[in-house]
């Protein structure tokens, strides 16, 4: 069972959290001008990588804050945690 480090509340059991999936997906601005394919890309298409994964979590049963996590989807190890407004960190020795 994963232990997720909420940047505010500290490490808590995964069952206190809601997983928000892939991070850093930009919602297209000016939605009226983009075509169906670009919109579908935003809505549905995902990296779903085997390896380093930048994702979003929400401490749903705690402080209700959203934050970013870098996790290895093979080992499930969490390598970094950062705030919503921060840029994704580089993980030494790993490329995504």
């Amino acid at each position, binding site marked *: 069972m994963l232990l997720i480090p909420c940047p505010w509340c500290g490490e808590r059991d995964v069952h206190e959290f809601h*997983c928000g*999936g*892939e991070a850093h997906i930009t919602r297209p601005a000016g939605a009226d001008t983009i075509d169906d394919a670009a919109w579908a*890309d935003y809505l549905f*298409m995902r*990296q*779903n*990588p*085997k390896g380093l994964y930048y994702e979003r979590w929400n401490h749903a049963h705690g402080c209700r804050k959203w934050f970013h996590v870098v996790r290895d989807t*093979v080992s499930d190890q969490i390598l970094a945690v950062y705030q919503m407004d921060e840029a994704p960190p580089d993980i030494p020795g790993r490329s995504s």
Partner: protein
Amino acid sequence: MQKYSIFSLARNALSRHENWREAWRSPEPKPEYDVVIVGGGGHGLATAYYLAKEHGITNVAVVEKGWLGGGNTGRNTTIVRSNYLWDESAGLYEHSLKLWEGLSQKLNFNVMFSQRGVLNLAHNLHDLRELSRRVNANRLNGIDSEILDAQGVKDFCPLIDTSLTLRYPVLGASLQRRGGVARHDAVAWGFARAADALGVDIIQNCEVTGILRDGDAVQGLETSRGTIKANKVGVVVAGHCSVLANMAGFRLPIESHPLQALVSEPVKPVLDCVVMSNAVHAYISQSDKGELVIGAGIDSYVSYSQRGGFDVVEDTLHAVVELFPMFSRMRMLRQWGGIVDVCPDASPIIGKTPVQGLYFNCGWGTGGFKATPGSGNVFAHTIARDEPHPLNAPFALDRFTSGALIDEHGAAAVAH
């Protein structure tokens, strides 16, 4: 192909079973094939079988990174049914169910397809409404399906606690009598053996590491056992489909999640049908060996670990004990996980891709075992003809662009 029967068993008993031949060969990969299927799960093997059997394409290889059936085919709760809501799904799954009926004979391998009936329980008014919608749709699609009230549930499966003291009492159920279970491993092995007999090369321990392209067309594959050329490649790798799509340069609307299951210790038969409940989240049947086979939920996060959290198993067993109080003293013998490829609309993607000659069959998520023969059948058609079979045409990747999704979520939160 050496024939399997009670007589051949008896004959071989005389020679101490020393004359059985290999169920399939283990050939070295050839430099080139007409078609290469990536993924030696049930779907990939069935695809190869039907390519050879129905389309006469026998210069085919199935490449599997590990061992045949080691993916979700070998780790699922084996529920087979076709009572899906939407016409598109019903068509596809019913096609598959019809192929299941008679599959052991066709493959000359007993896949132990057991039509013992599948109950989907309803625990609230919303469930009942959705259930009635689905059963009515099934009926008009010519799929056997009926509604049972609480008493009917009790009569059909006396073990279920149908008392009103349940936190969420059982209000009724749908029943598909033709539904049931099959022996997961046997499905992979049976298709492999039959495909091999038709000339298909089955190559295990061969991981695809790259997809070779000439412009927009596929040319072949890089694998851990060298380059294999082919102008047609069918990718059927379930939880790993995004990894392969990435090699080919596109993305899929898919996330890979752990889905867990567990078995109890074996006991004498007590449960003779399949029971599924979405509202309290439990899926359970008893195998022919005697263990209770129980499906748990998916973990919420992406993972390629074939493991999940204990909490998910806990939730499932809470529900099992709630529905079957006498199972409280049964014991969990083994738990495991698979990597399921979940699509936003809980329906698969079967068809062409942006790359010419490259076909994908994925997104079966939590419920593709039941589709194994049907999926292989229509996918073989798609590859052989370079156009979808009418049954899989609606399941094309471009439905995500148009918005014409086939949303089976409403029908089953987890579509085992």
